[in-house]
């Protein structure tokens, strides 16, 4: 009760305290103000392209910045973002769950350093991943994985049809997967830790093996948090810029809609990174790129809101549950 009193001076306190409280509140409101101003400004500055293309901008496929024949559509980049993120999720989610389970069950002496090393991946800058992908990874990847896949399935499955080059949506997706593993594994480990110890012990007492304990006691209980952790990884994959820009091959317009996994593509962040500086200021080109940014902003916002909602709810359960 005292805490509430301390927290809220009821209008009687000295002026300096009121000023302090107002300053703190303003700083707290700053994040909301920034988000609001951002939406308004992105919406306002992308106005010209919405006027010109209308809502069709979202499913248009042309991308022609030549003056006089200008035409813009964001669909190829939206598809590129979705496909690369999907590839990343398919690879990263199971791997991250494995990492989280390993760190939780392995002996501390091995588990903790391993978990820490996985988390260090998150500290490596995006541009370094790009450099490594561009100069090292893609050659090995092309020779050892893409070419054999192409030779084996190229004729029968359209996914593997194109000509492997190393700079394509599959390699971009793999790099993304590597980059989001630390995010997903850290958050899912946290939510798995939130499962009450009694529940795990109950499963062990019934004679479960470790795996059965996870299947019976941990996964069902932590389901919301695990989904939230994965969506958080998705949010990171959607917004990732530099590594993808350097590896995806940077096609534009209709060519950026991938026909196979070995096709060059383009994502929403990468088209902005590639063209924003080259575009002449105050042209429709810039406003089209800003509109792509607005779409990206809204998608990322939706993804992160859902993810944080799921994860915070999960962790709140822990606070309410019996504490160990």
């Amino acid at each position, binding site marked *: 009760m005292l805490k509430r009193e301390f927290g809220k001076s009821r209008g009687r306190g000295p002026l300096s305290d009121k000023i302090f409280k107002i300053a703190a509140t303003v700083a*707290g409101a700053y*994040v909301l103000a920034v988000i609001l101003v951002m939406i308004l400004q992105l919406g306002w500055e992308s106005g010209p392209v919405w006027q010109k293309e209308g809502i069709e901008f979202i499913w248009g496929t042309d991308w022609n910045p030549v003056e006089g024949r200008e035409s813009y559509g964001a669909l190829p980049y939206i598809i590129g973002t979705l496909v690369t993120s999907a590839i990343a999720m398919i690879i990263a989610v199971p791997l991250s769950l494995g990492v989280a389970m390993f760190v939780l069950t392995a002996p501390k002496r091995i588990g903790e350093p391993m978990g820490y090393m996985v988390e260090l991946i998150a500290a490596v800058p995006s541009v370094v991943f790009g*450099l*490594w992908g561009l100069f090292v990874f893609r050659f090995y990847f092309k020779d050892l994985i893409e070419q054999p896949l192409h030779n084996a399935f190229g004729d029968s499955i359209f996914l593997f049809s194109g000509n492997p080059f190393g700079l394509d949506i599959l390699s971009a997706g793999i790099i993304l997967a590597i980059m989001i593993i630390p995010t997903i594994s*850290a958050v899912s480990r946290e939510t798995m830790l939130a499962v009450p110890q009694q529940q795990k012990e109950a499963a062990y007492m019934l004679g479960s093996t470790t795996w059965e304990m996870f299947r019976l006691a941990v996964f069902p209980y932590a389901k919301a948090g695990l989904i939230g952790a994965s969506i958080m990884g998705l949010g990171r994959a959607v917004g990732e810029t530099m590594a993808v820009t350097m590896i995806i091959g940077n096609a534009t317009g209709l060519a950026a809609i991938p026909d196979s996994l070995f096709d060059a593509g383009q994502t929403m962040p990468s088209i902005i990174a590639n063209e924003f500086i080259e575009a002449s200021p105050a042209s429709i080109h810039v406003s089209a790129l*800003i509109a792509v940014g607005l779409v990206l*902003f809204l998608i*990322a916002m939706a993804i992160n*809101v859902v993810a944080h909602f799921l994860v915070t709810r999960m962790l709140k359960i822990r606070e309410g549950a019996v504490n160990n």
Partner: protein
Amino acid sequence: MSSTLLQNSRDKRAEYRAMFKANVKNRLLVDKIMIGIVITCTLLAIIPLLWILGTLVYGGVGALSWEFFTQEPGAVGSGVPPAIGPAIQGTLIIIGLSSLIGVPIGVMSGIYLAEFGGGWFSKQVRFFTDVFMEFPSIVLGVFAFLAIVLIIGHFSIWAGAFALSLIMFPIVARATEEALKMVPYSVREAGTALGLRKWIVTLRIIIPAAKKAILTGILLSISRISGETAPLIMTILGSSQFFGGFDSPMDALPLRIWRFSLQPYDEARLSGWGAALVLVLIILAIHIAVRCWFSRKNTDKGFISRILKQRSV
């Protein structure tokens, strides 16, 4: 008579044992397979890190020299690995400026969440601070471009610092909040009992008590922004010269690495590896130092708030 009974029960026991073994054998086998899969997952996740670090050291050490750290990049294709002097200088300047903007806002925002929070509004602030932490950084760059570069009419270091401060302040805010919450309530009561005003109690007693954790959060946010490239492309643009005033383009390490990657020369690639090695070493050093300094026990993601949360339980 009794021997047949015994015989019977012995048979039954053997039968049950066989059934039990068959049953458990499969389950133990599944368990072993899962353990194998889980270990494979972890190794697969770690291989890229080791591979990248190995490549950086192998490819980058050759570029390192005194000139490499202090000279301007110079003309491309001249045979000498282009240097990264301006990039290092630029990275230090931009980190300083964004901390100048981001740290006060972040700390004040953390004070709000910890000391004045509890209501509906503070819940929203906390939630959106968390959400904002994961925002695509390139959109923040576009925003800084629109809000500053477009209005003042030229590329500006302040625009870059503003964009990076947007990445920085949510991390600092949440770290500060968690740090302040760890200070026992009796400390606040003691301060208030001395007749001190709330803002003096907060700034002179509580903040110093939570200093270490707040500094840790600031360091982690610095390590995060020092690797950011995307928002800098459209704000400070990049340049091959040393600092030339706040209203002109400036270089930064990640930007320079990106430029090197676009140049088709072997020596540019060598410099790229060298610059990446320097950048990664700085960031990893911050991370590892923070970890050793703050706590040896916690194995959590970079965000200090999470570390603190686990520690307080």
